[in-house]
C-alpha cells in the first residue's frame, strides 16, 4: 500500500512538471515568432562567418586587404591589419558560438564604426587611392546597415525569450527524518524564514499568514497568504490573498523515500511579479537562477531537520572578508594590495571594541 501511494505521488509530480513545460513552450514561442527568429539566426550566422572570413584574410594577407581599401602601405600597416583581423575573428567566433549572439552583433557594429573611422583617416591622407577607399567605405556602410538591423532584431528576440513570465521553480531534497516530523515542521509556516533566504518573517494570525520578504533596496515586500490545501503528512499548498503586490503560491509534497531513506520533499514555488520596477526588483531578488536559490533553501531546510540548525562556516556568513582573513598587511610583495582591506578590517575591529 505504501508503494502504491508512493508511485501515485511520483506520477503526480511528474505530470505536473510536464504540464508546466508545455505551458511555458506555448507562451514563450509562438510559431510565427519561431519563424521570424530563424531568419534572424540565419542572418546572424552569415555575419558570423563573414567576420571569420574577413578576419582570416586580414591576418593572412594584411597588405593585400589594405591595398584593396586604397591605403598607403606603411611599416605599421601589417600589424594594424592583423589586429583588425583578430578582432573580426573573435567577433565571428562569438556570434557563432555564444548563446547571446546580440552582444557580439553589437560588437560588430562598433567594429564597423572603427573601420569607417580608419577609412576616413585614409581618405584624408594625401596619397590614398580615393576610388578604392570610397568603394571600401560604401561596402562597410552596407554591412553596417545589415549589422545594425540584425543586432536590433536579435536583441529583441533574446529579450522576448528572457521576458519574465513569472518565476516558477521546482526543487526536491531528501530529508533523513520521518514524514510526519518533516510535515509538522513545514506546516508551521513561521519556520520558513529559518531556511528560506529571501524571507524575513512569516506570522500566522487567524488562519491567515503575513509574509515579509527582503526587498532589493531595503524596502521589504509584504503580503498575506492562505493555506489552500492541507493533507497532513502528504502535501501542503498556500497562495497569496488578493491584493498582494507580488501574487505568489507555493506547494510542498512529502513522500516516503525508498528504502527507508527518510522523506522526499518536493517544493514548487511560483511568483508572478507585475511588469515594471517592482517586478524587476523581485526578479533580481531571486537572482539569475531562482532554481539554485530554492535548492539552497532546501539544503538549509535539511540541515535544520537533520542537525538542528543552519550550519555556518567562516565564509558562509560573511560576504567578502571574513574572520579567517588577515587583518593586517602581509609579506612585502603583497603589502600594497592588502593595505586597503587590512586597514578596513582594523577599523571594523576598533568599532567592535
Amino acid at each position, binding site marked *: 500500500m505504501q508503494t502504491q501511494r508512493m508511485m501515485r505521488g511520483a506520477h503526480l509530480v511528474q505530470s505536473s512538471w510536464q504540464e508546466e513545460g508545455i505551458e511555458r513552450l506555448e507562451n514563450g514561442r509562438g510559431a510565427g515568432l519561431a519563424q521570424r527568429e530563424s531568419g534572424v539566426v540565419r542572418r546572424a550566422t552569415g555575419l558570423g562567418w563573414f567576420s571569420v572570413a574577413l578576419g582570416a584574410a586580414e591576418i593572412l594577407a594584411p597588405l593585400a586587404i589594405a591595398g584593396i581599401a586604397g591605403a598607403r602601405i606603411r611599416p605599421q600597416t601589417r600589424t594594424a591589419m592583423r589586429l583588425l583581423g583578430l578582432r573580426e575573428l573573435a567577433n565571428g567566433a562569438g556570434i557563432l558560438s555564444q548563446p547571446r549572439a546580440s552582444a557580439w552583433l553589437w560588437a560588430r557594429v562598433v567594429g564597423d564604426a572603427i573601420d569607417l573611422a580608419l577609412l576616413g583617416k585614409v581618405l584624408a591622407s594625401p596619397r590614398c587611392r580615393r576610388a578604392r577607399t570610397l568603394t571600401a567605405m560604401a561596402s562597410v556602410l552596407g554591412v553596417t546597415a545589415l549589422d545594425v538591423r540584425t543586432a536590433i532584431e536579435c536583441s529583441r528576440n533574446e529579450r522576448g525569450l528572457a521576458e519574465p513570465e513569472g518565476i516558477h521553480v521546482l526543487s526536491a531534497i531528501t530529508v533523513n527524518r520521518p514524514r510526519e516530523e518533516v510535515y509538522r515542521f513545514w506546516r508551521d509556516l513561521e519556520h520558513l524564514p529559518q531556511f528560506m533566504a529571501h524571507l524575513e518573517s512569516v506570522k500566522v494570525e487567524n488562519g491567515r499568514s503575513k509574509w515579509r520578504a527582503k526587498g532589493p533596496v531595503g524596502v521589504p515586500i509584504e503580503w498575506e497568504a492562505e493555506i489552500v490545501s492541507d493533507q497532513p503528512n502528504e502535501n501542503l499548498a498556500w497562495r497569496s490573498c488578493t491584493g498582494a503586490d507580488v501574487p505568489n503560491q507555493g506547494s510542498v509534497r512529502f513522500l516516503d523515500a525508498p528504502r527507508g531513506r527518510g522523506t522526499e520533499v518536493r517544493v514548487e514555488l511560483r511568483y508572478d511579479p507585475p511588469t515594471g520596477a517592482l517586478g524587476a526588483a523581485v526578479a533580481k531578488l531571486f537572482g539569475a537562477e531562482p532554481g539554485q536559490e530554492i535548492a539552497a533553501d532546501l539544503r538549509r531546510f535539511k540541515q535544520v531537520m537533520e542537525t538542528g540548525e543552519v550550519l555556518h562556516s*567562516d*565564509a558562509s556568513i560573511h560576504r567578502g572578508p571574513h574572520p579567517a582573513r588577515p587583518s593586517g598587511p602581509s609579506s612585502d610583495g*603583497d603589502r600594497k594590495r592588502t593595505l586597503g582591506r587590512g586597514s578596513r578590517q582594523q577599523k571594523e575591529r576598533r568599532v567592535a571594541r
Partner: protein
Amino acid sequence: MKANCWMHRKSVAIQDVPDPKILNSRDAIIRVTTTAICGSDLHLYNGFVPTMERGDVLGHEFMGEVVEVGRGVNNLSVGDRVVVPFPIACGGCLACQEGNTSLCENSNPNSWMAATMWGHSPAGIFGYSHMLGGFAGGQAEYARVPFADVGPLKIPNGLTDEQVLFLSDIFPTGYMGAEMCNIQPGDVIAVWGAGPVGQFAIASARMLGAERVIAIDRFPYRLRMATDRAGATETINYEKEDVQEALNALTGGRGPDACIDAVGLEAHGHGPMYAYDRTKQALMLQPDRPTALRQAIQACKNGGIVSVIGVYGGFIDKFPMGAIVNRSLTIRSGQCHVHRYLQPLLQRIETGQIDPSFVITHRLPLAEAARGFEMFMNKVDNCEKVVLKAA
C-alpha cells in the same frame, strides 16, 4: 591569533586573524597543539584547487585541547585532548549514518559550488577551499570545529601528539586505500607514491594480510622508508626502470592483485605522455595530471582493483577506459571516511601494532609554516612529513 594563510599561488604566510568563535551550538573551539602539512595542501599551494581566496586559513590535520564548547556538545569538556578528522560530518544525515562521513550531506554550506563542479557536493573540509565549505583550517593557534559532538576523538593519556595526530587524515586515508583493495591472504599490492599517505597504505596493506607490497616512487629516501619502516617488500624507482615491466617481472607477468594510487593530480613521470599532460595542465586544458593513475590501471592484473586515494579535483585526459572494461578492473575511490576508522586505528596504535610517527622527518614551529611548505614541496633535506608545533 596567528594562522597560516593561503596568500596566492606558491605563497603561504603567517597572519594575524581574528580568533574563531562558536557559530553553531554544536561547535567547539580547540587550542591547536600539533598540526601538519598534508600532501593535499600542496595542491592548494600550487594553485590546483579552485575557489581558494587570499587569506584562507589552511590545515586539515590538527589536534589540540578543547577550550570552549557550544551548548549542543555534551560529550566533550574543556581540557579534553582531541584529534579532529579532516572531513566535517553532522552524524544525522543518511551518508553519516551509513558511515560515509566524507559525504556528509549537511556540512558544506557552499554545497552549490561543489555541486556545480562535481554534480553533487561531498562533506565540508577544514581549510580546503570555499567550494568545500570555506572553513578556517587548523594550521593556527585555535580552530573552530563544527559538529564537535560527532568528529573529535578523545585521546587517552600516555599517547603523544605525534603518535595520534595522523588519525586526522593520512593514516586512515592510507588504511582505507588498502581496505578498498579487498586484500586476500597472499595478495600482491602495488602502491604508487611513497609519500606519507603511501607509507600508511603500505603499512595498512601489510596489516590487512598482503604478502608482498611494492612501493613505487622516484626518491630513494622515500623508498627506503617504505621498506625499512612501512613494510614494503619491493621497490621500483620509476625514474630508473619502466614500471609496467618491473611489475610484470615481480609478479610473474600477471600484475599486482590491486594497485593503490597515493599520488593524485600532480603526478610526475617521464616520456612524451608526461610532457603532454604537463603542457595541457599548464595551459589549463586539463586540471589534473593522471600519470600514476594511468600506470596503475595498465599494470593491475586482470579482474583486479585500482584503489584511488590520491586527490583529483577535476577532469583527466586519455583515461584508459578500454583497459578497465576489457580487463574487468574495479576502480574504488573516495575521500577518507575518517570517523569510522578512528577507534579501530587508535586501538592499533595503543596495542603497538603501528606507530604512525615514523613518517615525521621535520618538526617546525607554526611560525615557520611557510618554510615547511617549501621544504615539503621541493623535497628538501629528504622531507617526508612536516609537523608544526604550537608555540
